[in-house]
């Protein structure tokens, strides 16, 4: 039995050392991440392989290799790969190394790569994060390329071009314009027997319609719920705030909204929640927020109104058969005050690369947003193309739901303003917002208490980020 004691001692020592020293992040964490990375790595290696073989064949011309990273699902990866192929076919001197990732992984990876000054030459960029990168001078100034015509902006409306300017520097170009708005399942509305106005409604009207819906559904013994709980979406909160003449942030990077509007917003959804049948209960909302698209109650035809970016309409339509889905604007203030602002993904160039790569990257950006060969693949992938001529060009290529989306965006673009970019530290504010609405949903705090705590946390988060 002495042997056992020795054995246990050694076993413990070995395992203790290895597990403690293998890092405090947790083994399972690393496993999960590495397995995800593995898949993307294999993607990379396969594309690298194919490039290497072509590399050897035409070594006569001087080759430039640029790395292009984007986020998205499998379908988007196919579309973007096709665009890269077209670009390579037309520009034999440039090879595009593709680095796709899912939305969450993309930003983890980009932050790490930027820290190591090895960010991709061309990358997807988003207004939600751009300040983090532009504020630290990791994005190239694209103005010279716009002036010398490498990036052609003649067919892009000036408001959209200027939307790529952060802190005075032109750092990104729009991949497409979209809006995060409401989508109505008209079949359910008809079945329950509720009318709703065509494009615009006010927050009060929205609540009235919701209650009417709940009453009628109950009378008829139908099990539908009127709408998503939009207090879960900080984007929708932003609409409420903007229609009150404020915004989430001010131009100089401070909190742009006050406690009063926050309380009003939480109270508005609490009233609907308490009414019953208008929005789902707190636990169901928590569940919805973590469900994939095809499992959401809206997709399954149990909820009549949902919120998501309109460029995703065709993805939902693909799941929902012939349901009549109607894109609808977010409610306005009672006097018709609007919250719309231009949204959508952008494309940017790294500041860490040499001029030769920068030139090739700028050519790629121009090809991406300004050529038929690119847009015939992209279509509505990121919203309506910023290039107005190409927006017309893709129309005949679109399926029915994409046409609905493009019509909607065209109708709404004229009434939209531009949003203020989130300052550094915004992700901590976003996290505090998530806590705040959950506290009201689960009833552990009143709207007033939760709004007060949220304001304190939000101000502290931005203050902390400045140090």
């Amino acid at each position, binding site marked *: 039995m002495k042997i056992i004691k020795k054995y246990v001692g050694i076993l413990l020592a070995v395992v203790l050392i290895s597990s403690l020293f293998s*890092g405090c992040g947790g083994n399972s964490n690393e496993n999960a991440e590495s397995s995800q990375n593995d898949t993307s790595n294999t993607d990379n290696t396969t594309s690298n392989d194919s490039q290497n073989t072509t590399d050897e064949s035409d070594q006569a011309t001087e080759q430039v290799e640029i790395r292009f990273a984007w986020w998205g699902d499998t379908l988007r990866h196919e579309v973007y790969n096709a665009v890269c192929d077209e670009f390579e076919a037309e520009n034999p001197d440039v090879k595009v190394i593709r680095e796709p990732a899912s939305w*969450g992984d993309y930003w983890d990876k980009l932050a790490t790569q930027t820290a190591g000054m090895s960010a991709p030459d061309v990358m997807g960029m988003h207004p939600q994060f751009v300040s983090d*990168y532009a504020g630290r001078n990791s994005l190239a100034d694209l103005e010279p390329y716009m002036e010398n015509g490498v990036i052609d902006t003649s067919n892009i409306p000036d408001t959209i071009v200027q939307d790529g300017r952060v802190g005075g520097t032109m750092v990104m170009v729009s991949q497409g314009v979209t809006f995060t708005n409401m989508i109505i399942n008209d079949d359910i509305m008809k079945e329950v027997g509720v009318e709703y106005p065509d494009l615009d409604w006010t927050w009060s009207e929205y609540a009235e319609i919701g209650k009417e819906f709940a009453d009628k559904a109950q009378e008829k013994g139908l099990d539908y719920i009127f709408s998503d709980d939009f207090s879960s979406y900080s984007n929708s909160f932003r609409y409420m705030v903007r229609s009150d003449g404020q915004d989430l942030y001010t131009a100089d990077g401070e909190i742009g909204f006050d406690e009063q509007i926050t309380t009003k917003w939480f109270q508005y959804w609490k009233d609907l929640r308490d009414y019953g049948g208008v929005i789902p209960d707190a636990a169901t909302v*928590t569940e919805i927020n973590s469900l994939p698209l095809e499992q959401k109650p809206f997709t399954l035809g149990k909820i009549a109104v949902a919120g998501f970016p309109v460029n995703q309409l065709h993805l939902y339509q693909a799941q929902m058969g012939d349901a009549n889905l109607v894109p609808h604007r977010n409610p306005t203030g009672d006097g018709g005050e609007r919250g719309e602002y231009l949204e959508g993904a952008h494309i940017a160039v790294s500041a860490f690369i040499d001029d030769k790569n920068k030139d090739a990257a700028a050519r790629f950006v121009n090809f991406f947003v300004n050529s038929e060969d690119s847009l015939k693949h992209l279509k509505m992938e990121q919203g309506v193309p910023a290039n107005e001529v190409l927006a017309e060009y893709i129309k005949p290529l679109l399926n029915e739901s994409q046409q609905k989306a493009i019509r909607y965006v065209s109708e709404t673009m004229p009434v939209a303003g531009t949003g203020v970019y989130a300052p550094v530290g915004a992700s901590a504010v976003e996290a505090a917002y998530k806590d705040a609405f959950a506290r009201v949903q689960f009833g552990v705090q009143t709207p007033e208490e939760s709004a007060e705590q949220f304001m304190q946390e939000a101000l502290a988060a931005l203050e902390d980020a400045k140090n």
Partner: protein
Amino acid sequence: MKELTRKQKQGIIGYLFLSPWLIGFFALTAIPMLASLYFSFSRYDMLTPPRFAGLDNYTKMASDPKFYKSLQVTFTYVGLSVPFVLVFALIVALILQKNRRAVGIYRAIYYLPSLFGGSVAVAILWKELFNKEGVVNQILGNFGVEGISWIATPSTAIYTLILLGIWQFGASMVVFLAALKQIPMTYYEAAMIDGAGKVRRLFYITLPLLTPMVFFNVVMQVISAFQSFTPAYIISNGTGAPLDSTLFYTLYLYLKAFGQFQMGYASALAWILLLIIGAVTGVLFITAKKWVFYE
């Protein structure tokens, strides 16, 4: 001379053979750990160089309610899952120790969950089980009980994760099985001659002789439970929802590091976790003198 160079040569060759491990140790463990120790005393957002900030991160932690919440969640998880894992592992090992027909298959079946229980796929499966529309509620529905969404209700969410942890008792079970085989039959025979019944034999022979392995399993399970991450990350969609009831310490650390780019604060959290695990393990070792029986 010749003798010496030969020795030197052998030394060099020795280090060459060691080099894969040495490189791995320094590049993947020692240097990153030292870096993280430095980061924990600095402000670091991964995009700009770290700036020394003294004890800021640690003092901030002392007044961070989410830090305490995540500690509470983690201790609840460790405190409930580890004892149940050990009890189940021991019971099943006792049942499966006899060489009956197909016992190997049963052992394999009970061991399997601990191989893939921490995986993403199982976490997703768990989500499907305990959803509002999940399998569990469908079974409850047959008995006329209307279930709630177990993973999205603050008071129950943590228990679904604890259950997932308990389900993975297989690894401990295998250790117990091996240890049970080590206990000489002569002890039991002697006890039977003295008239000891099954229960007495269990409590006076089996359990005392098993205590070294119980100790080993406790330490291992406690450490891995503290580091548990994937299930909470997947089931709460990386948020710790609902109401932070599944905000494991490692999940909070991850959110600070990769969600909010507060790498310095996250490093400080990591070092505190290391200290906590070290302290708990130390306490276990001290108490072990009182109850672990080495013959």
